[in-house]
C-alpha cells in the first residue's frame, strides 16, 4: 500500500472537483488522457501572460526567456528518460507523430524491398498504420508477434520471426487496451542480436513505469505529454544520436535549416533538424511542470498506489462474479476480464455478458463515472480476442479506493440489469 496523501494530490487537480449528471465525477479514463495538475495549468497561463515569444531567433528578452524555458523542458525530459544527450530528445505533436517521423525518415532511407518490420498483436493503430504505409511503399513485409489468451506476447514466436531480414521491431511497451507490460528489454536484446532497430511506443508506459533508455538500450522511444499529466499536442521522440544524424529531415521549413538558398539547403543539427516550424511552445513549457509533478511524487509511489487501485478493482469484479453465480441460476460468469497478464499497469478491460459496452458506458456516465468503451484503437487485437470492444477502467495517482468502490457498485447494478 502506498504512503501517498491522495487527498492533497487530488486537490492539485481542479477538474476532479465537479459533478457529472448530479454525481461526483469518477474519472477512470486515464489511459485515454490524464487530467492536469494546477501547476501545469498555471504554467500555461503564465507563459501567455508574461513570456510569449517565438523561440531560438529574436534578440529580445521575451524570446530569450521563452527559449530558455522551452529548452528547460528538453533537459527535464532528458533526465526523466535518462537519455545520454539532450539533443536526442525531439519535440513532436505526440506519440503518433513520433512514430510517423521514424517510419517516414528512418524507414524511407533504410528499409528496402524484402526487409521485415515486426510489430505485436496488441499495437495501437498508431504503431500499425505508419509501418503499413512505409512497408507498402518500400515492398517491405510486416510481421506480427502473436499473444496468448491472457494478453501476453508469445516470445517463442518472436524468436521465430526474427532473422537477418528483420530491420525494425516496433513494439508497444504497455498495452493501452489490456495494460500488459511487455518484456521490452528482452525484445530489444533479441532484436539487436540480429542487427535490428527497436522503437518503443511509450504512450502508456511512461506515466506508470521508471524509464531508462540507456539501460533498456532502445533505439527510439515515443513519449506522450498528455498521458503524463501534461498538455495535449506535445510528445517526444527519443532517438540515439547516430540514428537521428543518419536520418533525413521529416518536414521542411524554419528552424530545421542551417542555410537556405534556391540552389541548395543545408540542414540544422539535431534536435532542430526534426523540429520544422514554430513548435507548440507554451504546451512544451507547461509539460515540464507535469514531469516535475511526477518526479516529486516518485514513480514507485505512483505505481504502488495504482496497483492497489487495480487490485481492488479486479478483486471486486471477481467478487461480483462469485456473488452473481451464487445468487442466480447462471452457468457463466457475468463479467469476463480482458487482459490478465502477470505484468500489468493499472488498466482493466472487461465485458459484461448480455450488455453492449456502449450501453454500459452510457449507464456508468449517468452515475458520473468516466470509462472508455469501444475498440481502443486496437481493432486487430479485438479481432484476435473475438470482441468488438470492451469497457476499460484505467486508474491514475489521483484516484481513490473509494472511487473504485463507487465504480464496482455501479458495475454490480449493470450486471443485475443485464440478467433481467
Amino acid at each position, binding site marked *: 500500500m502506498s504512503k501517498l496523501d491522495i487527498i492533497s494530490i487530488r486537490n492539485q487537480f481542479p477538474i476532479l472537483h465537479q459533478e457529472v449528471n*448530479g454525481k461526483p465525477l469518477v474519472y477512470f479514463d486515464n489511459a485515454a488522457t490524464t487530467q492536469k495538475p494546477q501547476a501545469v495549468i498555471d504554467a500555461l497561463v503564465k507563459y501567455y501572460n508574461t513570456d510569449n515569444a517565438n523561440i531560438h531567433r529574436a534578440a529580445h528578452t521575451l524570446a530569450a526567456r521563452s527559449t530558455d524555458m522551452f529548452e528547460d523542458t528538453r533537459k527535464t525530459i532528458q533526465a526523466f528518460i535518462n537519455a545520454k544527450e539532450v539533443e536526442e530528445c525531439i519535440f513532436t505533436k505526440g506519440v503518433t507523430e513520433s512514430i510517423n517521423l521514424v517510419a517516414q525518415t528512418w524507414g524511407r532511407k533504410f528499409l528496402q524491398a524484402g526487409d521485415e518490420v515486426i510489430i505485436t498483436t496488441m499495437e495501437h493503430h498508431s504503431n500499425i498504420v505508419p509501418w503499413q504505409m512505409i512497408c507498402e511503399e518500400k515492398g517491405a513485409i510486416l510481421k506480427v508477434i502473436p499473444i496468448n489468451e491472457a494478453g501476453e506476447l508469445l516470445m517463442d514466436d518472436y524468436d521465430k520471426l526474427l532473422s537477418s531480414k528483420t530491420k525494425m521491431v516496433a513494439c508497444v511497451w504497455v498495452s493501452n487496451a489490456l495494460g500488459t507490460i511487455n518484456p521490452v528489454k528482452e525484445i530489444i536484446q533479441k532484436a539487436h542480436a540480429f542487427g535490428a532497430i527497436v522503437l518503443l511506443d511509450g504512450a502508456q508506459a511512461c506515466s506508470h513505469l521508471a524509464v531508462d533508455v540507456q539501460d533498456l538500450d532502445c533505439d527510439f522511444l515515443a513519449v506522450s505529454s498528455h498521458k503524463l499529466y501534461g498538455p495535449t499536442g506535445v510528445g517526444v521522440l527519443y532517438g540515439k544520436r547516430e540514428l537521428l544524424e543518419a536520418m533525413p529531415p521529416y518536414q521542411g521549413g524554419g528552424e530545421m535549416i542551417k542555410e537556405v538558398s534556391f540552389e541548395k539547403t543545408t540542414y540544422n543539427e539535431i534536435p532542430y533538424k526534426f523540429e520544422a516550424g514554430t513548435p507548440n511552445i507554451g504546451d512544451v513549457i507547461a509539460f515540464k511542470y507535469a514531469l516535475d509533478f511526477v518526479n516529486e511524487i516518485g514513480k514507485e509511489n505512483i505505481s504502488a498506489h495504482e496497483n492497489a487501485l487495480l487490485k481492488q478493482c479486479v478483486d471486486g469484479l471477481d467478487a461480483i462474479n462469485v456473488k452473481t453465480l451464487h445468487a442466480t441460476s447462471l452457468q457463466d460468469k457475468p463479467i469476463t476480464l480482458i487482459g490478465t497478464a502477470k505484468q500489468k499497469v493499472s488498466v482493466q478491460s472487461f465485458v459484461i455478458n448480455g*450488455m*453492449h459496452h*456502449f*450501453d454500459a458506458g452510457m*449507464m456508468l*456516465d*449517468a452515475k458520473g463515472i468516466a470509462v472508455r468503451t*469501444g475498440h481502443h484503437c486496437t481493432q486487430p487485437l479485438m479481432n484476435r480476442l473475438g470482441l468488438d470492444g470492451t469497457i476499460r477502467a484505467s486508474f491514475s495517482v489521483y484516484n481513490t479506493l473509494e472511487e473504485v468502490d463507487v465504480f464496482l457498485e455501479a458495475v454490480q447494478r449493470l450486471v443485475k440489469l443485464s440478467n433481467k
Partner: protein
Amino acid sequence: MKNITDIQNEIIENFELFDGDMESILFYLMDLGKKLPAMPEAHKTEDFIVKGCQSKVWVYPSFMDGKVIFEADSNTEITKGLVSLLVQVWSNQTPNEILNSELFFIEKIGMSRMIGSQRSNGFSNMIKQIKMYALAYKSTNN
C-alpha cells in the same frame, strides 16, 4: 392515427417526468427499445444498416395502404430506444406527412446531451435515411 406533432408532444411530456435524471432516462430508453416489435433477421442486411452509427442500427421500410411502416433494431439497447422514438413518430404515416414534418422533440428532450456529437451524427443519418425512404415511396406513387 395521431399526427406527427401530437406524437412528438407526447414524447416531450414523457421525458419531462424524469426531470433530467440521466439514469432514469437511459432506463426508459432501454424499455422503449424492448417494446419495439422484433425485426425479422432477414431484414437485417448490409443494405438496411444506417451508416455512421457507432453501434449497429438497421431501419427497414415497407409501404402499405399509402403509409410507410418502419421496422428498426440495434445491437445496443440505448440506441435501440433512440431509434424507437423515430419509429414512434414516423411509422404509419404517409410519405408526405413524413417529408413535411419537422422534428422538434429531439432538441426538447435534450437528445444531444444524451448522445454526444459523435453519436448525434449517427442519429442524423437515421433521420436522413428515413426521409429518403419516404421520398422514394412518394416518387414511386406519383
